């Protein structure tokens, strides 16, 4: 992290970290402590101790430089978003497969069971909340889910949602009650209990999905390859029309009943239920889907007036059907994420390239910083360090000066001796 040292007038040094948090002032020093993030117990923040008994102040957002700053940036800009993006893909796979499973019949003749379980929406109440409210969040629409993190806070009268990844306020529909939940970003939020002003919750729609992901089906016979429905042409048909096995597109609205598609003319069809009520009707186009009862069939060829086709539930004879399996394959490549714009593959690719770009940025930052570091070290060494050649030359110089001085003494000694001898002998 970035550290600044300031020399005081009394030659004492004060040490400041980050953007001016005092670590050492005159004779007192503060400790850095790891403190739990108020909204996410699994993540630790950097706190500056306020002495015994005091609450440390959270200075995480001030930590910008150095290895601590680097680690914190990696956590907030790489690890958390990646966890969210991976979670979104996991929710995508699980939702699409489970939905298709529900649209089909498995090898045992039973309706398909969910294939994957994923972890739910992560809701973290702040440890500073004083009210008694609780928040229940569930995912409702795959295409609405984002990889962002949200904060739901209570201002005393209203609940407000902020997308903390973008910093934007998000408008919610509904009132937050169980009967009329807040609907936002592919989630439904239900608040119960009494909240106090200032209470907040951090919501991660997808982050916990991966860690809670598991496979629920245990046998290949549980793969719902066959459609829930079946269809058959009346034996009395005189036209050449053929019907596809129905694909169930909306298993929740599909009912197990017989429907009849009949041609009132060679170009007009109508669909009637078992009691003879017309469910839908339209102009016949060969091969285009006819939708009713949460399912789709397509008729091709040239049906004659009076021809009819019965569409009902799958029978034992549908055991070898692969209609739903084909629908699973199609669902896996459909654009189902981010408002129906991104396929699972595209989401994976986006994630890989985002991480690649971040890594590349980090690498070029590191090499730039290394250059700065090295030239600064060189400049410092050039000021404070020594050059051995220079020192050797100086040493010779002093050595010679010393030798010269010694010679002087030697010479004067001889002179004095000679003089004294002359006096004594004379």
């Amino acid at each position, binding site marked *: 992290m970035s550290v600044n040292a300031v020399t005081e007038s009394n030659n004492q040094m004060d040490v400041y970290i980050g953007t001016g948090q005092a670590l050492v002032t005159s004779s007192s020093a503060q400790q850095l402590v790891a403190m739990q993030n108020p909204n996410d117990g699994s993540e630790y923040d950097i706190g500056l101790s306020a002495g015994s008994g005091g609450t440390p102040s959270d200075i995480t957002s001030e930590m910008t430089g150095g290895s601590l700053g680097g680690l914190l940036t990696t956590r907030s800009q790489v690890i958390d978003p990646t966890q969210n993006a991976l979670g979104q893909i996991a929710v995508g796979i699980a939702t699409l497969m489970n939905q298709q499973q529900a649209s089909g019949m498995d090898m045992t003749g039973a309706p398909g069971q969910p294939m994957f379980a994923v972890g739910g929406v992560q809701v973290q109440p702040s440890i500073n909340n004083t009210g008694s409210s609780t928040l229940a969040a569930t995912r409702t629409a795959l295409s609405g889910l984002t990889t962002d993190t949200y904060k739901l806070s209570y201002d005393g009268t209203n609940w407000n949602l902020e997308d903390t990844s973008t910093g934007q306020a998000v408008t919610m529909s509904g009132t937050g009650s169980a009967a009329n939940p807040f609907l936002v970003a592919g989630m439904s939020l239900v608040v119960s209990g009494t909240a106090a002003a200032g209470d907040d919750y951090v919501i991660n729609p997808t982050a916990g999905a991966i860690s809670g992901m598991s496979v629920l089906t245990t046998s290949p016979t549980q793969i719902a390859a*066959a459609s829930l429905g*079946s*269809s*058959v*042409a009346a034996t009395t048909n005189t036209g050449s029309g053929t019907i*596809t*096995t129905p694909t169930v597109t909306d298993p929740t609205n599909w009912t197990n009943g017989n429907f009849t598609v009949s041609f009132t003319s060679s170009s007009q069809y109508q669909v009637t239920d078992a009691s003879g009520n017309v469910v839908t009707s339209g102009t016949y186009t060969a091969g285009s889907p006819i939708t009713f009862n949460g399912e789709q069939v397509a008729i091709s060829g040239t049906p004659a007036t009076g021809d009819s086709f019965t569409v009902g539930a799958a029978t*034992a*004879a*549908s*055991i*070898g*059907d*692969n*209609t739903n399996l*084909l629908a699973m*394959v199609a669902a896996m490549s459909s654009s189902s994420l981010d408002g129906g714009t991104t396929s699972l*593959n595209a989401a*994976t*690719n*986006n994630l*890989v*390239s*985002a*991480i*690649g*770009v971040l*890594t*590349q940025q980090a*690498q070029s930052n590191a090499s730039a910083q290394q250059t700065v570091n*090295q030239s600064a*070290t*060189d400049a410092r*060494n*050039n000021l*404070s*360090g*020594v*050059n*051995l*050649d*220079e020192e*050797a*030359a100086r040493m*010779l110089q002093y050595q010679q000066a010393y030798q010269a001085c010694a010679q002087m003494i030697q010479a004067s000694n001889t002179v004095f001796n000679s003089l004294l001898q002359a006096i004594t002998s004379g």
Partner: protein
Amino acid sequence: MRISTASFQNDAVSQMDALEAALAKTQQQLSTGLKVQSAADDPTGMTTVNQLTVEISASTQYVTNSNTAQTNLQLEAQAMTDATNIFQNVNTLAVEANNSALTAAQRGNIATELQQDLNQLVSIANRTDSAGAYLFGGIASTSAPFSQSNNNVTYNGSTQVNQVQIGQNQSISTGDSGFAAFMNVQTGNGTFVTSAGAANTGNASISTGQVTQPSQWVPGNYTVTFTDPTDYTITDNSSGATVSSGTYTDGGTIAFNGAQFTISGSPASGDTFSIAPAGTTSAFSAISSLITTLQSSSLNNGQLATQIGASIQQVQNTITSFSNVSASVGSRLNAITASRGTATTNQTSMKTNIATITNVDYAVATTALSSEELALQAAQESYASLEKMSLFQYLQ
């Protein structure tokens, strides 16, 4: 300017470090053959590579699907060929039986042989693939689609067949339902069916006939009634109106409403022949009705000739129907070959694209390696020689 000795040493070491890191990277590229080791080396390139990898695996699956579909369709084509061969034999037997000189016992022998053909046809129709799934059961592939009770064969399978994807936007059915292959043979001449009245006492027989002027043909049920052995009237059953009448000539052509047929032999007064709209019937009934005809002891020669004639027509219709099914199987096999060719070509070009992005260019990498080696060597040698350049060397 003064360069501190520590600076000189540090700079020399860090430069050699950098050169060694570059050498190690180049060496790694050369030894793995990959230029892009991770997404950070080339984020956009890696995205393209991932996309291509997904498409290659899809394409590989299309080829696998094509191979499975091809195996199934080839089994079906073989079954249709075998069924056609049976009907060639049935045709020969029917023509042999269509001879008024044969005795009831001789006809019975032919019927016995036909019985074998019928049983064999049922076993062909109930053939399974290598995984034990019935070829002609449609999506009801786990239970035998055809059941036989005496000469009566019924279809219990599904009329729906599975589709497999053999290309990005191309699916084909892996077979035909038993209904489409064996139960959907048109009757008569495709427009109408002729038959002799059961109570006829004369020995006259009626041909299968044909429609010569389709624009004049009015679909419906008609009856040809002989008011006496030489005169006939044709009435429309629904209105009771006489649509045509004439004088009978043995073997002469009778035409009405754009249709024509011949009656030959000696009709008795009151004999009737009916003309009904054509429908569809099963391949099995073509054989079983012939067996019934040949085993019957109550039919006169005229009725026998009419019924055997109708059976021969039905056998011909079945052979035509089988050849239509075979043609459709053949066209699907062609589509498979074509799409597999496309898939293989695409895979090759996608693999080439991936190689262009990820594979190391050995010429470039080897050149880089030698220049980095040279630089490192120069750095080391210059460091070693400069390191000796100390004034202390000369002071000893």
